[in-house]
Structure formats: structure tokens, C-alpha cells
């Protein structure tokens, strides 16, 4: 009986998850046209308790997406426009001298924009590495230390950073170590003609679509917890490991493209990202366990910023997605 009850609870949790996600997608869909993968990717990152890097040319709705997500989730949202003169304190916050009730002088910490549930770090590569580091430390630790005092950032904490791939002048590309801290790197692509029609219809009419909050903070945390409970069969996990190994040029599993054009393969954090994303995708699909198909789907956004091409690869114009595609095609599914 107990087993049957647990099973029912499991099913109920998954069904509830699907319903919540369905509602969330629906609300986001009121504003965001198309870009389903980017939306799902962003949601995946949020549910994984991690962060996303969005790359795309200006005007594709990156900022709108993040704002819409924040509105639909009824979470605290802040936006930081990264510029070269932006300082870490501008993000984290600063300590100021203030008067207490008795008229005495006290130091008071004024929290920066980082203290929000959803943070949009717009054009993150325009800030100096020092400022980037301040943000990335908070992203990793979910807390900020200022003047020997540590301030925890409220959960869920989700940073969405954007960067423009075209304008490289005056930018500070993120170092590999910092890129690794992003769960996904999502490429925001240009919308199709139909999608453009819809965008124009919605944004040029008299009324802007209104997004209602559909998920509370607690519900989001509950969903994050459920994600962690999704089981993964050994053969799926083994597949993830073999894919990870194949990204390393020195590995015997590495296909030709990897051996020729890859400088560094993905770190174990990459495998964690893949597996966690696969679990979330399984839940999106209403399944109780992650599958190899899920892994295949999430490998691109989870690994594309973790596989670093060598000079020859860059000179040849090889894309990391090509490398990942070959790895996936050459890695056998069953070796258990």
C-alpha cells in the first residue's frame, strides 16, 4: 500500500509540475512569441537553481523574456545594465553611514540589484572583469560578503545574463571559468516570418498584453526540489559521462572533430548541468525519469559554452554545436 501511495504521490507531483509549467508557459507566451527553446531553456535554468547566458543580437526580446518571466513568477526582479564604468558595488550594494533612532552614526548596508530573485545582467561582457567577477561570485555562492558580513540572497536566485556577439569592440569577453558557471548558454535566434507577424500584431496594437503571476516563490522552490528527485537510470547517466568524455580531445572516445578542433572539453560541472537539465526536460514531458533523448536535447545549450575550440577550430569557423552534434552521433547509447 505504501508503495502504491508513493507511486501516486510521484505521479501527482509530476502532474502538478506539468500543470505549473503549462501555466507559466502560457503566461510567458502572451508576450514572447516563438523562441520556445529559449523560454524552456530559461525555465530549465531557473528550475535547476542556476543561471543562463543569453546570446543574441539586440532587439530579439532577451530583456523582455526575462521581465516576462519575473512577472509571471511573482518574483522580485532587477536589471543591471553592464557598462565599462560599472563597479562591483553597483551590483552588490554598498555600506553607507546612517543615523540610528538615537541619533548615533551606524554603518548600513544598502543592498544592490543582485538581491533579487531574478536578475537581468544586460550585456554582461561590457563590464570590466572585476565587476563581472563580483556578479559571478554571487551567482555561484548565492550570497554576498561585504565588510565581513555575509548576506544571503533569497531563493530562488536566477541570473539571466545577455551578451551581444556582434559588437566585440570595447567588450570584455567572459573567461572560461566564469562561462562554466552558467547552466545554459542560449542562442536567441531571429524569429520566423509568422512569429514576426505575431510580434508586430501584439506590440503595435493599442493594448499591451498583461502578464499575471501564476507561480509563487514557494511553488518555484517546490518545483526545484522535485527536479532533484527525478531518477536517472544508469545507462542514461553512463551516456552522459561518455558524452562528456568525448568532448575531451585526448579521450579515446573523442571523435575526429573533437580531436582536431577542441582545446578543452567540458568540466564535470557540464555533466551535472546536462543531467539536471535532462531531468527537467523529462518533467516537462510528463515523464518520471530522464532519458537519453532528454540528454541529447539538452547537450547543446549545456555544453556549447563549455567546449572550447582551439585556434585551428576558430580559424576553420567550426561551431561548438557541430562538435557536440558529432559527439552525440558517434557515442553509442548502450554500453551498460
Amino acid at each position: 500500500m505504501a508503495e502504491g501511495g508513493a507511486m501516486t504521490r510521484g505521479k501527482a507531483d509530476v502532474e502538478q509540475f506539468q500543470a505549473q509549467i503549462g501555466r507559466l508557459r502560457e503566461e510567458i507566451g502572451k508576450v514572447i512569441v516563438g523562441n520556445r527553446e529559449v523560454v524552456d531553456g530559461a525555465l530549465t535554468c531557473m528550475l535547476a537553481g542556476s543561471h543562463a547566458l543569453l546570446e543574441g543580437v539586440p532587439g530579439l526580446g532577451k530583456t523582455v523574456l526575462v521581465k516576462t518571466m519575473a512577472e509571471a513568477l511573482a518574483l522580485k526582479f532587477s536589471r543591471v545594465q553592464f557598462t565599462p564604468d560599472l563597479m562591483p558595488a553597483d551590483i552588490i550594494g554598498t555600506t553607507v553611514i546612517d543615523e540610528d533612532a538615537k541619533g548615533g552614526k551606524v554603518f548600513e548596508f544598502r543592498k544592490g540589484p543582485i538581491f533579487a530573485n531574478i536578475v537581468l545582467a544586460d550585456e554582461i561582457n561590457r563590464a570590466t572583469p572585476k565587476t563581472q567577477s563580483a556578479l559571478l561570485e554571487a551567482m555561484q555562492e548565492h550570497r554576498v560578503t561585504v565588510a565581513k558580513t555575509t548576506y544571503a540572497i533569497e531563493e530562488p536566485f536566477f541570473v539571466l545574463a545577455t551578451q551581444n556577439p556582434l559588437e566585440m569592440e570595447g567588450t570584455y569577453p567572459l573567461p572560461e571559468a566564469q562561462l562554466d558557471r552558467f547552466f545554459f548558454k542560449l542562442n536567441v535566434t531571429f524569429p520566423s516570418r509568422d512569429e514576426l507577424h505575431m510580434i508586430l500584431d501584439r506590440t503595435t496594437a493599442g493594448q499591451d498584453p498583461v502578464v499575471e503571476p501564476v507561480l509563487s516563490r514557494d511553488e518555484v522552490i517546490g518545483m526545484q526540489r522535485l527536479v532533484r528527485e527525478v531518477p536517472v537510470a544508469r545507462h542514461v547517466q553512463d551516456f552522459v559521462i561518455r558524452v562528456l568524455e568525448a568532448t575531451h580531445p585526448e579521450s579515446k572516445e573523442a571523435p575526429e572533430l573533437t580531436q582536431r578542433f577542441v582545446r578543452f572539453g567540458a568540466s564535470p560541472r557540464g555533466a551535472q548541468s546536462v543531467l539536471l537539465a535532462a531531468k527537467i526536460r523529462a518533467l516537462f514531458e510528463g515523464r518520471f525519469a530522464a532519458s537519453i533523448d532528454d540528454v541529447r536535447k539538452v547537450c547543446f545549450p549545456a555544453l556549447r559554452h563549455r567546449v572550447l575550440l582551439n585556434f585551428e577550430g576558430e580559424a576553420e569557423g567550426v561551431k561548438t554545436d557541430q562538435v557536440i552534434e558529432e559527439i552525440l552521433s558517434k557515442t553509442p547509447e548502450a554500453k551498460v
Partner: protein
Amino acid sequence: MRVTSALDGLVSTLAVSLVAVALVLTLAKVWPGFPRQGVRDVVAGALLAIVAQTIRRSLRRLPKFAGALALDVYHGFSDRLTSALSFAGLPASQRTPLMDAAIDDACQRTDHLSPRKAAPFSWPRDLAAAIGLGAGVAFLALLQVRQTVPLSQVKTIQPVVLSADDIDLFREVGKKLAETDKTPEVLAALQAYNQLVEDLAQKRLDRTEAFRRMHEIEARLMEGRALDAKELEEQLKRRAAALKKSELSRPAAEALEKQDFAKAERELRELAKKLREKPDTLAKAQLERLRDAMKKAAEGQKERLAALEQRREELRQQLLMQKKEGDGGISEEERSLFQKKERELERLDRELESEQRASRKLDRLDRDLEKAAEDLMRELGLSADDLDQGAEDINRIAQEKMSDEEREELRQRLEDLREQLRQEGQGGAQRMARLRRFIRQARGEGQGKRQQSCPPDDPNCKQDEQQQDGEGDEGQQGQKGQGKGDDEGQTFTIGPGGQRILVMGRRPGQGQGQPGEGKGQGQGQGQEPGGSGQDKGGQSAGHGHDPNVAGRPTNPKMGTLDVQAAGIDTGQGASRSEVILGASDRGFKGGAYKKVYTEYRTSAEEQMHRDQIPPGANDHVRRYFDLIRPRE
């Protein structure tokens, strides 16, 4: 899945094996030396590999959830079944609610599973390749490749090169020997000799082979030559001496003594005829003497042989005795005597053997004489028949003796040939050059005819000429200046005592050579004191001109007088030197030359026989005469 895997392995291995077999077959077709066993080994190895791979694939463990994965893939279950199986393998306590839900979910989908479709039988991937390769291998196996069998490389030899003149000489010898009747042994040897000469003429033999063939012919000649001619002569003389004691057999005995076998045969036949037809004219005493003479002639040799045998046996016994006595130690004198006796015994052995050989040859004649002697007193007719038979024996002996002579001549010619080859092989190019020059001179081709003496196929000719000039400096001939003069129209003949006499007007040209050209000529003059007066070179030669070289100018106003004189025939003909000179111009032809040649050659042979000529030069002398021999 296992069957498919096994089949896949089988076909893949088959394809690889077929490639290997095709390679080996190709090798075997194009390379005749490829071992057949190698092909069989490769085919056997390929079969073994196929069987082993098939068994291995059949027994190989499939991935743990290969079936479930196939079902998931086919039905689009997104690993539901595989994951459920994986979770189900865990203890219940370790399973989470989601795992249970995943298992339940998978179970709900098992109703419509189709394993056959999920893992359908599929033809091996390499089947087409294997079939193609199989066809190729079959084609290769049936293909007949034209193989070029490399012929063993023809062994090149360095042939013995004899001059055409020498070859002609040896051919003539062969022809001459073939003119008379021959015993089969001599005939066979002669054929072998002719073949040898032809092979030499065609440059088909190298030195080693030529010597080997000569040795073979000689061995064949010596094989049939069992009789020692000298011993035979001696024994015939002894028989003749015995037969002389009867006046009836004396004419035949005398002929036999003189080795006139034809006459001896004739006389014996005459005697037989007389015995047969005119027995009345013969006195009994005559017949008695004849019988005694024939008997003695027949038995004399037996007695002699017996005496020799007895003497030999006695000597042998003495030696044995001395050897036994001498075991204890003998003096030096005794040892010397012993050795002398040993040598005497050896001599007797040789003599006995020689006598026995000759006796065997005359054995039939002895038997006939003995029988004739026995029959003489009983029946004269029978005795006459025996004498006729004896005459036949003499005829046979005569033939054999003649054959021996021819054999000896052939052997001598072989010896000449061998000596010639030996000389050509020794001394290198310089000696060969000297030899060639000698040949030209011997053939009457003076140095003035140098150009003519170069055979077109003789590469050594030029070198030869250079050698000749060089040797002029050494003063061997001193003919350098003379040669030039000859070229310009001078002709010489041989005068008395070997003098060189200039013959004017025989050829167009200046008629006078350069008066000496340096050292060569001067030295040459010194060695030929009887040489031409034209060559005044001497030690001061090579400078200036004879002021009277052109003589006095002809006075055109001077009148001429035609005088006619009849020739006087002395009946003596041309002088020897004229004959020789004329014959050399005509290629050594003519009866007069033959006569002169024979005379000179005989004289030369006599001189050689008397050891008047150094033995080392004998060959050269013979060669010289061979080269200037009369031609038909």
C-alpha cells in the same frame, strides 16, 4: 539480435577474408613462384577466422538492456522501459516515488510491445560487399593469367678467337685425315675434332670448354691406342728375323722388317699360292726350314715373355728375401742395392706389360703361323690357307698401324691447337699483339700492308698497330722507315741469305722510303745487317735528305733506242725467293711454291729434330710454316 549479430560478424569476417584470399590469389596468379601452400594456408586461415568470429558473436553478451532499448527506440518510449528495468533492479527501499511511478508507467505500456519489429531481422551490412568480393574471388580463381616464364639468362662466354687462317689450317687437317679409311674410334675422334674446330670458328667455346673438349678427344684417341708402336715394331722385327731363316719366307720377312706391310702381305700370299698350286717345286728341306722358321717366329715371343716373367719373378723373390732379412737393419750399400733392384723390377713390369700388349696385337698372326707350320707337313693346302690368313692379319696390323699414325697426327694437331690457345691465353694483350704481327708477317703481309691486315672484326687491330710502332723503337725489326717507303711504292723481295732487295717499278710511287726515322730504324738496321741499302738511317737517321733522291733530270732532247732481246730459258725456273714472293702475293698457291715449301719445312723439321732450334721456339716455327702452307 544475437543471430543478427552473429550473421553480421560472419559476413564482415567473410568480406575481410575474401579480400585476403583475393590478394593471395592475385599474387599466386601473377607470381609463378608463389607457394601453393601459402594459398591453402590463407584460405584455411580465412575459414577459421570466419567460424571463430561467428561463434564469438553468437556467444557474446549483449548490452544489459539492449532489448529494452530497442523497444524504447522503436515505440518512442524515451527510455521508459529501460529506465524502469533499471529502477526495478534496485531494492524497494532505495526506490523513490518517482522511480515507482516510472516503473508503473513502463508497465502500463508493455501491452502493445512488438519485439519483432523493435529488433527485426536485418541482412548484414556487408552482405553486398561480401557477395561482390566472393564473385571477384571466384573470377580470380578461374582467371588464367598468361605467365611469362623468364628464361634463364643465357650465360655469356668469352669465346676463344682464332684467326681465320688457323681455323682453315685445322679444318684442312680434319679433311685430310678424313680422306683415308678409319677405325671407328679414330673416326669418332675425328668427328669430335671437326666439331671442335667448327665451334671454335663460330666462337662458341671459351677457353675452359675448348680445353675440356680437346682433353676429351685426346682421351678417346689414347683409349684405342693400346699398342705401343715401337714395341710392335720390335716384335715384328723379331718375327721377321725368325722367318728370314727360310728362303721361302725371306721376302715376306724382309718386307716385314722394313715395315712394308703391303709387300709383306703380298709375299705371304705369293708363298701361299705357291704352296697351294706348285707344291712339287718345293723341296722337303725347304719346307722343313719354312716350318721351323714359322714355328720359331710364332713361339719366339712366347719364350721371350716366359723368360721375362721368370726374370721378374726371380727378382721379386730376391727382393722379398732381402726385405725379410733387412728387417733387422741393413747397411747403406745394401739399401742402395735393394732400391736398384726395386727399380729393375718396376722396369721389368713395364716391359712385360708392353710386350704383352704388343703380343696380343700379334697373337692372331702367331697362331696362324703356328698352325701353318703344323699343317705344312701334313697338308700344304691347309698351310696355304693359314698363310693367307696370316697375310690378312698383316693387312689388319698395317691398317691399325696406319690408324695409329693418323691418330698420332690428330693428337699432334690437338697439341698444336692447345699450344696455340695456351699462348693466346698467356702474356696478355701485348703478347697477343706480337703474335698477330707474327702471323701477318708469316703470311707475307708486310707492314706496308698494315691497312689490309686489319680484319674488320678484329678490335685489337688498332692496338696492335700501336704496339707495332712501339716495338719499332725497341729495334726488333727496324722496319718503320722501310714500311713507309713500301707504302709509297717500294717493293722488296727476299734475296740470298735473307737479304731484302728492292724491286723497282713493280708498284707506282716514289720508290724510296724516308731514309730512316729515328731510333727504331737505326736499331733495326743493326739487327739486320743484310738489309736494304736504301735505309741509311743508322744512328744518325732522321735528319736531312738524300740530295740525289731524284737523280739527274731526264734530258728530253736525248734520243732513245729501242732494243729487243729474246729471253733465255735456262730451264731452272724462278729462284726460290721469287717463287715465295710470288706465292705470297697469290695466297700461297702454286705447285712451285708447294715444292719449295716442302723443302723448307722438311729442313726446318730436321733442324728441330736435331735440337738446333731452341725447344721454346719450335712451336713458333711450326706455326710459321702452318701459316705459310700451300693452299689449294
